[in-house]
């Protein structure tokens, strides 16, 4: 018998707002009266390194982290990070990924090149991947830093929570002075995947 827990992993690069997005996501099940656990790691990760957060929700959640092969969803804020965490997905898992490419240190100092084949490699793995230009959409809205909320909007259509529950969670977590931009970013992201 399987548990009803939903496992979402958010992966990106320090400074992309993955933790704020995770807080919004974790607020939804809390508001719905479900159990939720969210795990993040601070420290060295913030200096331009990979950042991952784990959000798990359901009737009763035990472990704070998601093991490889356990994630229902990987929400990737950056192209290479999508590939780095693809093995966390279950067989039937879904990956929603930003096409933005942020070169890492070995690439910046010329020792490596940014891989060109990420999308095809994920396809070859059989991953159900949905690629979108969240950064571009955010830039069109006037602030590329809203890419996290665009991505969250795009991801929102994959979960059963109604749209007004999302906007409520956004209002709870995001400071008032940024809320209008983020609501617009969320709506724009949602339009990208609405079926």
């Amino acid at each position, binding site marked *: *018998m399987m548990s009803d827990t939903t496992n979402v992993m958010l992966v990106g690069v320090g400074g992309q707002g993955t933790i704020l997005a995770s*807080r919004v996501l974790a607020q939804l099940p809390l508001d719905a009266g479900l159990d939720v656990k969210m795990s993040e790691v601070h420290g060295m990760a913030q200096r331009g*390194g990979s950042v991952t957060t784990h959000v798990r929700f359901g009737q009763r959640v035990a472990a704070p982290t998601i*093991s490889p092969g*356990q994630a229902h969803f990987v929400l990737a804020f950056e192209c290479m990070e999508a590939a780095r965490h693809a093995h966390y997905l279950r067989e039937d898992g879904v990956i929603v990924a930003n096409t933005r490419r942020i070169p890492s240190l*070995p690439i910046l100092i010329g020792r490596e090149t940014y891989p060109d084949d990420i999308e095809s490699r994920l396809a070859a793995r059989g991953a159900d991947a949905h690629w979108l230009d969240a950064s571009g959409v955010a830039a069109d809205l006037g602030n590329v830093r809203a890419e996290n909320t665009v991505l969250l909007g795009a991801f929102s259509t994959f979960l059963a929570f109604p749209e007004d529950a999302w906007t409520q969670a956004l209002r709870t977590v995001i400071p008032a002075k940024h809320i209008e931009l983020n609501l617009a970013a969320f709506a724009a992201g949602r339009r990208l995947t609405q079926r």
Partner: protein
Amino acid sequence: MKTLMSGNEAVARGAWEAGVRFASAYPGTPSTEILENMATYREVRSQWSVNEKTALEAALGASLGGVRTLCAMKHVGLNVAADPLFSSSYTGVNAGLVIVTADDPGCHSSQNEQDNRYYAQAAKLPLIEPSDSQEALDFTRMAFELSEEYDTPVLLRVTTRIAHGKSPVTTSERTEATAPAYERTMTKHVLVPAVARPRHAAVEERLARLQAYAESSPMNRIEWGSTRLGVISGGVAYQYAREVLGGSASYLKLGMSFPFPAALARSFISQVEQVVIIEELEPFLEQTVRALGMGDEHPIVGKSLIPRIGELDSRTVALSLAPALADADGRPAGVAGAPPDSGAFGTAGELDSLLAPGREAEQVVGRPPMFCAGCPHRGVFYELGKLPVMVSGDIGCYALGATPPFSAIDTCIDMGASITAGLGFQTALDILRPDKPARTIAVIGDSTFFHSGMTGLLDAAYNGVGVITIILDNRITAMTGHQENPGSGFTLSGTPAREAQLEALVRALGIELVQTVDPFGLAQVREAIAVAMGSPCPSVIIARGPCALLKRLAVRRPACQVDQDTCRKCKACLRVACPALYVEGENVQIDAETCAGCGVCSQVCRFGAIKQAGAAEGGEE
């Protein structure tokens, strides 16, 4: 109404609810947010101490003085505070004293993964281990009661996943604690030998009473599921066990694991067929269970299956347990034996799905942390990387100077070790190569210098060892996320503070050659190092430039640009490893959004091809 809280927030909340009035800490991941949250409660006087030893001594003093006190630190910080820790066990408390150790299994941001549960055993203090945020809050409150009832400091241990993991919490209101009267009690608080000897006896007697408490403490409980398998666990490891096995096992869940509730454990073990002890890092519980002879009658497994290295997760626990749980037909025994709907979780756990063959990870280029754009450390390490010297490093963002392309640090040991280890290395050089003078340079941040570098510098000055110390003064404790320190001009609560003067301080310690440089000026840095190397005496260079992320001080200058016509495509500028510089085809480009205009790259370019927008000349020569 439940709120989502991290373990650190919950510890602070629990302490506040318990009526705490003083809190002290030195920042260190994963403990930092405890005091940051504490500082939001106006009833509590919260302070960043200079190091963990001063924090704990202040905390003990406040407890003796009559106010409930919380003291927090990361696991290695407790090494620094070990001296007062052991003494506090003998003095006991007056008002409640809870000491939080935040351990870091997996070394997410630490130099080791020591298991601080042993400190409780060694210092003979009760040990409390919450396994989620609600427990972090509740157990912290209970810890203060326990502290006062048993006249003992209480050690509360969280690990990274508890400290930084968020889960729903129900809060309560604050209960003001009555301040116990203070009385001068030489027989308890003055630890001279004549007092210490009888105090040791008192501590042993206290331990016996604490053990009796542990047997029936609400922090220790049995959760019955299938009795084919009995799990003994605590902290975050309990959550992984629960995830994997669900109701297909029974659990002895220990929230207070020292002193060990031996009778409770014996009773639990006698009622299950097989026992597995699931704990992260060391076999702390397992050794106790075995020492009590419980493994003699019953099959007990622990570290023979569960790794003692690194952080656990559900899959690791599942894979480790699988061999012991397999039936003759290969079915995992725990699951096969489970009633269909048993235990609080109502499921048999995730064992089967976690055992599914893992899928290979994609091999992609790594993404290690790096100096931020505009970081004041970059230029210093660029220069140090070119010198034939031993560089003794320390704990902070600047430890990144050890990684390529700088590769400019030889050692990184513990807080403050740069100067003293450098002193020792310099001494070894002096002994082995008296005819071929070679130099050692210590690099240390401002906060780390205040923490425990000052004493080492005094050691160098006093013994006349010619180690060169560069204090990377970026005006803040940056690594842990911008905490104030004695040099930053503000306290934890944000009120202006008297600013420690580094130049005057190092002179007072006996350093005669003191140079202050702007770390964004490479020529200045080079010259100062050359002057220091020219003197056989210990000397100090203060490289003062604010952290690029420190909004109140960092200056964002116009972005730099590469003049592609002047550029010879040599890519020497990439050796400063700046996130703003990237290669596009044959050209190096600078991302104007990311560039902070610090100008370090322009000084590295020998052809003057990198210029600041609006500046007349690049190049420094």
